[in-house]
C-alpha cells in the first residue's frame, strides 16, 4: 500500500514536471529531486533553487530600477526571488524576516520546495502560462487586451525639470505631446483596419473548416501544392504542440490532489524538525550586508496618495452639498426645483443618474473579452428549437455550452457608451473652463472650432 502510494506520488510529480516543460520552463528537476527535497537533503538545493527562480522569472518582473543591474549576481537573484515570493503572499522567515539569508545554502531544499508549492497553489500560475501558450499557438484566437493601464495618479507632464526654465520646457513638452498624441491616433486607426482584415480571414478559415462542401469552381495550378503545403503543415504542428500542452495540463489536473496530500506530509516533517530548532539560533549582529531595494516603499506611497485623493474628494463633495443646501434655504421659492417635479419625473432622473454612476463602476472591471477569446462558428441550423436551450435563468446566454458572441457584444456596447460619455463630459468641461479663462486674458480672443 505504501509502495503503491509512493509510486503514485512519483507519477504525479512526473506529470507536473512534464507539464512544466511543455510550458517551456527550463531545467526541471526530476521527481527524485523532489523526494530528496522533502527530507531536506543538501544535494537537492541547487535543483529546487533553479526551478523556483525560473518559474518566478516567467511569471513576475521587477518594477523598479534594480532590474537593470546584473542578473548573475547571486544577491540580486536572491532579492528578486524573495520579493516575488512576498508578492505572492509567502511570508516565511527567510523571505520577510529581519535577518534574511545571504546565500542559498542557508535556505534548505525543503523550504524551497514549500515556497515552490505555495507559488503553484496561489495565483493561477499554470493558467497564466497556459493562456500565454494558447494565444501563441492558436492562430485563430483573439489576443488579450493590449492596453496596459497607465498607473493612475502618477503621471506628470515633465518627470524632472529645474524650476527656472519651466516655461520653455513646457512649450517643448506640449508640442512633443501633441505630436505623439497625433501619432497615437493614427496608430489606432491603422490597428483597427488591420483587425478588420484579420477578422475577415479568420472567418473564412473557420467557415472552411466547418463546412463540408468545399468545391472550388476555379482550379488553381497544381504545381503550387508543394510550396503551399508548408503553411498548413506549420499550422498542424502548432496545433499538435498546443494539444500536447493541454493533454499534459489535463493529466496534471486529474492527479493534482495527490500532490497536495504529499505536500501536507512535507509540511508535517518540516514542522517536526522546526520544533527542534529554537528561533534564537540565528547568529546575532554582524551578518553580510544584504541588498536592499531603494524603491521598496512604492506601495506605501501609493496608499498615502490614494488616502489624500479620497479625503480631498470627500471634503469637496461635502462642501458642495452644504453650499447647495444653504443656497436652497436662503433663495426664493423659484429655486425649489426638486419639489416641483412630479414623481415620475423624479424616478426618471434617478434612473438616469444611477445608470451613469453604474457605468463608472463598470468600466474598471474586466469584460468578457479582456482575456481574448477563441471564435467558433455556430451551427447554422440548431438541432432543437431555441426555447429548449434556456432554462429561464438570467445570465449569460449559453448555447451548446458556449458563450454567445451577442452577450459579449452587448456588454461591449454598454461600455463604449459609458466611456464615450465620460470622455465627452471631460472635454466639454475643459472647453468651458478654458474659454472662461481665455476671456479673462488680455489682448487675446479665443474662437473655438466649429462643431462638426
Amino acid at each position: 500500500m505504501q509502495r503503491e502510494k509512493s509510486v503514485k506520488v512519483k507519477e504525479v510529480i512526473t506529470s507536473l514536471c512534464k507539464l512544466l516543460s511543455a510550458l517551456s520552463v527550463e531545467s526541471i528537476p526530476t521527481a527524485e529531486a523532489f523526494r530528496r527535497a522533502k527530507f531536506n537533503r543538501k544535494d537537492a538545493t541547487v535543483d529546487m533553487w533553479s526551478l523556483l527562480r525560473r518559474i518566478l522569472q516567467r511569471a513576475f518582473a521587477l518594477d523598479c530600477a534594480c532590474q537593470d543591474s546584473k542578473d548573475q549576481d547571486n544577491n540580486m537573484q536572491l532579492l528578486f526571488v524573495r520579493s516575488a515570493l512576498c508578492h505572492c503572499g509567502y511570508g516565511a522567515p527567510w523571505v520577510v524576516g529581519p535577518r534574511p539569508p545571504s546565500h542559498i545554502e542557508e535556505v534548505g531544499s525543503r523550504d524551497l520546495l514549500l515556497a515552490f508549492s505555495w507559488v503553484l497553489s496561489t495565483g493561477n500560475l499554470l493558467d497564466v502560462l497556459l493562456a500565454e501558450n494558447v494565444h501563441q499557438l492558436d492562430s485563430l484566437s483573439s489576443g488579450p487586451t493590449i492596453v496596459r493601464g497607465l498607473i493612475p495618479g502618477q503621471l506628470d507632464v515633465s518627470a524632472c525639470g529645474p524650476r527656472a526654465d519651466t516655461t520653455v520646457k513646457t512649450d517643448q513638452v506640449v508640442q512633443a505631446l501633441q505630436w505623439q498624441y497625433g501619432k497615437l491616433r493614427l496608430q489606432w486607426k491603422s490597428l483597427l483596419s488591420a483587425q478588420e482584415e484579420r477578422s475577415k480571414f479568420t472567418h473564412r478559415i473557420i467557415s472552411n473548416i466547418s463546412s463540408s462542401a468545399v468545391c472550388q469552381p476555379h482550379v488553381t495550378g497544381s504545381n503550387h501544392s508543394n510550396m503551399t503545403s508548408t503553411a498548413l503543415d506549420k499550422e498542424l504542428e502548432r496545433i499538435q504542440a498546443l494539444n500536447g500542452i493541454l493533454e499534459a495540463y489535463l493529466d496534471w489536473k486529474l492527479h493534482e490532489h495527490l500532490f497536495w496530500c504529499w505536500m501536507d506530509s512535507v509540511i508535517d516533517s518540516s514542522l517536526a524538525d522546526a520544533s527542534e530548532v529554537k528561533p534564537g539560533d540565528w547568529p546575532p549582529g554582524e551578518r553580510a550586508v544584504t541588498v536592499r531595494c531603494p524603491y521598496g516603499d512604492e506601495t506605501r506611497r501609493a496608499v498615502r496618495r490614494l488616502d489624500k485623493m479620497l479625503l480631498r474628494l470627500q471634503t469637496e463633495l461635502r462642501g458642495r452639498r452644504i453650499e447647495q443646501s444653504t443656497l436652497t434655504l436662503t433663495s426664493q421659492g423659484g429655486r425649489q426645483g426638486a419639489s416641483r417635479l412630479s414623481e415620475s419625473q423624479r424616478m426618471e432622473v434617478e434612473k438616469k443618474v444611477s445608470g451613469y454612476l453604474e457605468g463608472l463602476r463598470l468600466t474598471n472591471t474586466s469584460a468578457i473579452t479582456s482575456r481574448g477569446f477563441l471564435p467558433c462558428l455556430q451551427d447554422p441550423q440548431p438541432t432543437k428549437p431555441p426555447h429548449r436551450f434556456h432554462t429561464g435563468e438570467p445570465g449569460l446566454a449559453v448555447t451548446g455550452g458556449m458563450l454567445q458572441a451577442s452577450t459579449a457584444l452587448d456588454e461591449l456596447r454598454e461600455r463604449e457608451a459609458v466611456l464615450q460619455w465620460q470622455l465627452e463630459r471631460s472635454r466639454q468641461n475643459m472647453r468651458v473652463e478654458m474659454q472662461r479663462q481665455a476671456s479673462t486674458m488680455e489682448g487675446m480672443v479665443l474662437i473655438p472650432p466649429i462643431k462638426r
Partner: protein
Amino acid sequence: MSLLYAVEEAVKMCKVEESRLTENTRQCKEILRSMKTRVTVTSELESAAAIDTREDIPPEEKQEIDLLEQVLKKALKIRSTSEVHKDLHSDSKHPNESKNKTLVNYTVKEEDKRKLVKSVPPSEMCKKPNHHRRAGGNAGHGAPWTRPVLVRKGPNAHSVFKRRPSLPKSAPMKISSTESQQKMCVKTTNAKESSEDNFPSVPCQEVPASGKDWKITTGSTQSEEQWFDTVSFAASLAGTENKTEPFLSEWPSRSPAAITTDLDLLTQRCLDLTHCFHAELQAQKDSDSGTRAWGRKMEGCGKTEVWTLHEREYESLQMLKGLERMTAELITCADHQKKDWERWDVRISGALCPVRRRGERGDPAHSCLPPILSYSTEAELRELESRRLRVEQLQQAVRLQQAMSDSLASYWSSRPGAGRPSAVVLRGLYSLLAEGGVQFPSLVLDSESD
C-alpha cells in the same frame, strides 16, 4: 513616469500589436491558399479515380487539422464551462432526460473524437448528413455505436444548462470529472458498445472504464477533496510561518499582489469620481449663470423650459449624492487595503523590490484562459473584434484625458509672475484637452502696432 513617455509607450504597443495582426493575416492567407489547392487537387483525384462514395470527403490534411482543432476547442470548452461536478452527482439518476439533452449539446467534436480514435469507413465520415441524422434523433440511421457517446455526454450537457453559466473560473474539480468522462467516451467508442440507456449501469468492457465510471458518480466528493487539499495546504503553510513569530499576532489576509491590484483599481475609480465631480460642478456653474439670466426673462414663459431646468437641478443633486455615496464606499475599501498593507509593511519595512506580474495585469482570482465565443455571422465576428478594440482605445483615451487635464490645465491659467505662455502652446493645449487633438481653435492676438 512622465506623460510623454506614457504616450510613446502606448504608440509602441499599438505598433507591436499591429505587426502581430498583419503577421497573423499573412499566415491565414497562406493557409487559405493551401486549403484551396489541396481541395482542388483532391477533387481532381476523386473525379479521376471515380470512387463510389457519393458523399463529400474532405481532404485528409484539412480533416486532420479539423480534428485537432476540435479536440483543442473541446478541451478548452470543457475547461471554461461552469462547474459540472455538483450536478453530475444528481444527473446520474436521470439518464433518460439526459439522453434527450444530448442532442441539444451536439457538436462536431464527438464525431471527430471518434475519428481520432479509430479509422472509420468513409461512408460514416460524412459530416453534414450525420449532422442532420443525429439532430433528427434518428439513431437507427447512424452507426450503432454513436449512441454511447451521446449518453456519456448527457450529464455534462444537462448540468451545463441547469447551472447558471458563470464566467470561466479555474476550477480544478470539473476537470477531473469531465476528463474522466472524455476518457470514458473514448474507451466506450473503442469498445464499439451497443447502446445502453441507463447511464450508471452501462456495461464497461474494461476495468479501468468502470473505475472511471465510479469516479464520475463520486466526482463531486473527489473534487471537493481536491479543493480542500489545496486550501488546507496553503493554510497550514501559513500556519507554520506564524509559529516562528509568536509576537506578531495578526497575519495579513491577502497577498501584496492582490492589495496592489486593488489599490490601482481604487485609485482609478477615485480619479473617475473626481473628474465626474468636477464636470458636474462645471455644469452646475453653467446652468447657474444661465438660469439667473434665464429666470428673469422666462418668468411666466412656457412650463417646459422651467421643468427641464428643475430636472437638471434635481439631476445634479442626485449625481452629487450618488458621488458622495460612492466615495464613502471607496474610503471603506481603501481603509481595508491600508490595514492589510500595514500588516505586511511591518514585516518587510521596505526592504524588498516592488514586483509586478508579467504580461497581462489580470485579476489573480479569476481564470485567465480565454473563453470560447460562438458567433453566427461574419458581420458579428467583425463587429465583436472591432468594438473590442474601440473600447480599449476609448479607455486609453479617457485615462490620458484625465492625466492631461490634471497636469496641463494649470498652464492655461494666467500666472502673474511667469508670464503668459505663447499662443502656439495655448492653441495646442486647447486642442489636446478639449478636442482630442482633432480640431484647433483660432486665437486672435492684439499685436502692438508699430
